[in-house]
C-alpha cells in the first residue's frame, strides 16, 4: 500500500451558535491524517464531536477554522461550486438507512443520482450499465432496481446507501455510524462489503462508530474523541492493547463482552457520570470531571497530543 495521504486534517474546529451568545464547541482543534486504502476509526460517546467532524470534512458544515486537505488540495475555503469536482472523490454513508434514502425514488434512481450529478452518464436510461453490476456487487438483484426504498429491510437499504456512495469509486468514504441502526446479523454483511471494496479499489474510510469492537475490527488506526478533542490516536492494536488515556481505558472497560465467563471475571473500570455540556467545556483537560486519576494540573492546563512511541499519540498529563 502506498503512503499517499488522501486526507489531512489540521486543527479543524467547528463551533455552532446556540441560542443567545452561547457557542457549542462541537469540534476543537482536531488533526489527523488518512492514508490511501486505510481506515481511520473515530470513537467516542455521543456528543463527542465525531459526527460533526465527519460532516465538516465532507463540507456539510462550514469549518470555523483549520484545514481540510484532500489529495493535496486545501478544500477548506472552496465554495460549493468549486467543491463539486472533489465531491466525486469523497462520499458519505449515513447512519439511518431509513432517513437517508428518498422514499419517493426507485433504487435505480437513487444509485444513479451521483452518476447524473457528475455527468458520468447523461441520461437516466444509460445508468443501468453502472447500476446493475453495483446492485449485484452489494448482494441485491436487478429486480430490486425498480423497487422503492421503503419496501426494503434496513440492511438492504444500507447496502443501497453503500452502492450510492461507492458507484463513483471515490477515494474517501466517510462512514457516519453506518451500522449502528442495523441488526446484529446484518451489521457483519455491511462490514464485509465495506472491507471487500477497500481491498479491491483501495478506498479509504473514515469510520465513525460507537461500537468499539466493530471499530477494532475495521480500522487500521483509531482516534478516541472526547468533547470535541482527540484524547488518543494511534494504531488500532496499540490503542486496544495498551490504552494510555484514562478515558480510553474506561471506554474499553465498558464494552459488554459477549462471553459470560469473561464478563463475570471482568474487573470494573467504567467511567462514572455523564459527558459535560459542549457549551461550557471544562477548563484544562476536558475529561478531568470524570477522570479517576485527576490531578491539579488537569483542571488548569489543556494537555497536548504527544507521541508516546510508535505514533501512539495521547493527550494526558499523566502520560508525560
Amino acid at each position, binding site marked *: 500500500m502506498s503512503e499517499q495521504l488522501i486526507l489531512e486534517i489540521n486543527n479543524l474546529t467547528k463551533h455552532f451558535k446556540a441560542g443567545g451568545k452561547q457557542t457549542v464547541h462541537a469540534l476543537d482543534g482536531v488533526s489527523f491524517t488518512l492514508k490511501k486504502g486505510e481506515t481511520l476509526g473515530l470513537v467516542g460517546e455521543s456528543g463527542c464531536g465525531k459526527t460533526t467532524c465527519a460532516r465538516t470534512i*465532507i463540507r456539510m458544515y462550514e469549518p470555523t477554522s483549520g484545514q481540510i486537505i484532500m489529495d493535496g488540495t486545501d478544500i477548506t475555503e472552496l465554495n460549493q461550486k468549486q467543491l463539486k469536482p472533489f465531491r466525486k472523490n469523497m462520499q458519505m454513508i449515513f447512519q439511518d438507512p431509513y*432517513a437517508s434514502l428518498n422514499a419517493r425514488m426507485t433504487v435505480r434512481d437513487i444509485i444513479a443520482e451521483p452518476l447524473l450529478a457528475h455527468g458520468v452518464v447523461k441520461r437516466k436510461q444509460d445508468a443501468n450499465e453502472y447500476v446493475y453490476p453495483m446492485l449485484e456487487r452489494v448482494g441485491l438483484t436487478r429486480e430490486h432496481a425498480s423497487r422503492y426504498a421503503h419496501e426494503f429491510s434496513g440492511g438492504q437499504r444500507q447496502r443501497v446507501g453503500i452502492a450510492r456512495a461507492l458507484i463513483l469509486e471515490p477515494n474517501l468514504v466517510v462512514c457516519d455510524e453506518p451500522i449502528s441502526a442495523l441488526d446484529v446479523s446484518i451489521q457483519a454483511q455491511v462490514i464485509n462489503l465495506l472491507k471487500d471494496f477497500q481491498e479491491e479499489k483501495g478506498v479509504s474510510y473514515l469510520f465513525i462508530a460507537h461500537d468499539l469492537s466493530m471499530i477494532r475490527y475495521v480500522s487500521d488506526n483509531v482516534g478516541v474523541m472526547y468533547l470535541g478533542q482527540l484524547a488518543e490516536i494511534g494504531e488500532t492494536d496499540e490503542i486496544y492493547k495498551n490504552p494510555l488515556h484514562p478515558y480510553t481505558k474506561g471506554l474499553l472497560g465498558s464494552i459488554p463482552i459477549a462471553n459470560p465467563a469473561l464478563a463475570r471475571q471482568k474487573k470494573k473500570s467504567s467511567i462514572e457520570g455523564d459527558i459535560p455540556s459542549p457549551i461550557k467545556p471544562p477548563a484544562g483537560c476536558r475529561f478531568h470531571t470524570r477522570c479517576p486519576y485527576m490531578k491539579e494540573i488537569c483542571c488548569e492546563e489543556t494537555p497536548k497530543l504527544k507521541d508516546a512511541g510508535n505514533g501512539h499519540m495521547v493527550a494526558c498529563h499523566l502520560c508525560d
Partner: protein
Amino acid sequence: MDNKWEMLEATNEDREKIWTKNRTFAGDVWFRFRRKPTSIAGFIIIVLLILFAAAGPLFTEYSYSNQNLQVVNIPPRMKVFQTPDKDGYLYITQGMQVLQVNTDGTLGSQLTKVREESNRMMTIFDCDGTEVALYYGQKPYVIANPQKNTIYPSTELWNKSYLLGTDNLGRDILTRLMYGTRVSLMVAFVAVIVNMIIGILYGGISGYLGGNVDAVMMRIVDIISTIPLTLYVILIMVIMGSGLQSIIIALGTVYWVDMARVVRGQVLGLKEQEFVQAAKTIGSSTKTILLTHLIPNAMGSILVTVTMLIPSAIFMEAFLGYLGIGLQPPLASLGTMCNDATENLRSCPHQLFIPALVICLIMFAFNFVGDGLRDALDPKLKK
C-alpha cells in the same frame, strides 16, 4: 437418505426477496383512501360532476345562450290543463300565453290568440280549431271552455323538453348548469394549478434557501395575507374588467399564499433530513434537490392543500358571479345562474336552488376527498 433431509440450496435471490407486493406510493395512498366511505363518495361525486360538465353538452339539443322567449320560466313540473279533444295538454306561461304540451310531457307550439274578452277576463286562444279561454279573473289562472264556462281538468306533468325547466330568457337550465359546472370547475382547476406553481416555487425557494431570503419572502406573504382576499379579487376584477380570464387571474394570484406557507413548512423540515443532506454530499445541483427530493416528498401536503383550495376557489367564483362581476352574459357559471334566479325567486325558486345545490355538492365532494387524502397521507398512520 430420506428426501425430506435433502439440503436446500438457498440462492441469494431467495434470501433477498421482497415479499410485499410492489406497491408504489400512490398505490399505498389509494389503499388507505378507499377505506373511508365519505372520501370515496366524494371522489365518485367529483368524477360524475366532471363527466356531467364535460360530456353533458353532447347530449343536449339546446345551447347555453339560445334564448326562446316563448318558453320563459317554465318549471320542471308543470300544472297543465287537458285540451278539449283530450289528446294533449295546455300550459299557461308567465307571459299569459298558452303552450301546447304533448301527453309525454314535451312542449309543443304556442296557441294563437284569437281575441281578448276583457269583460269576461278571458283571452281566447285557438286550439286545433276549438276555442279555449285563459281565465285570469282570479289566481291561479285556468284554462276554461268559453262556451260552457267550465274549467278543463288539470293535472301535473314533468317537463320532458326542459328537464330542469327554463330561466327568465327561456334557456334550458340543465344545459346552462352543465356549462356552469364546466366553467366553475375549469376556473377552479386553472386557478389552483396557477396557485400550485406559484406557491410551490415560492414556498420551495423560501424554505430551501432559508435565512434572510426566507425571512423577507415570508414577510411579503404575511403582508399579502393581511389584505382581505375578497376585496383584493374584486379590485383586480374591477381593474381588468369582467370575464373568464380575469377571474382566473384574480383567483390564481390569491390562494398561492396558503400553498407557499405549506410548501415552505414542508421543505424546512425535509431539507434537514438525511436523504437531502446525502444529495448535497453527492454533489447534486440545487435544482435536482428541489425537484427530485424536496417537492415530491412534500407532495402529500400539497395535494391535501390543493383539494381544500378547489372548493374555496369555486365558492369565490360563484360569489363573484353572484355579485355580478364575474362572467359576462350569456356565459353561464353557477354563480351567475344564482344571480339571474334571484329576480324570480318567488315564482321560480328552482332556478336558484338547482345551481346552489350543485355548488354545495362540489364543496362537499372536494372537502370529503381532501379529508380522506389527509388521512391517507398522514405518516402517523403508516405502518
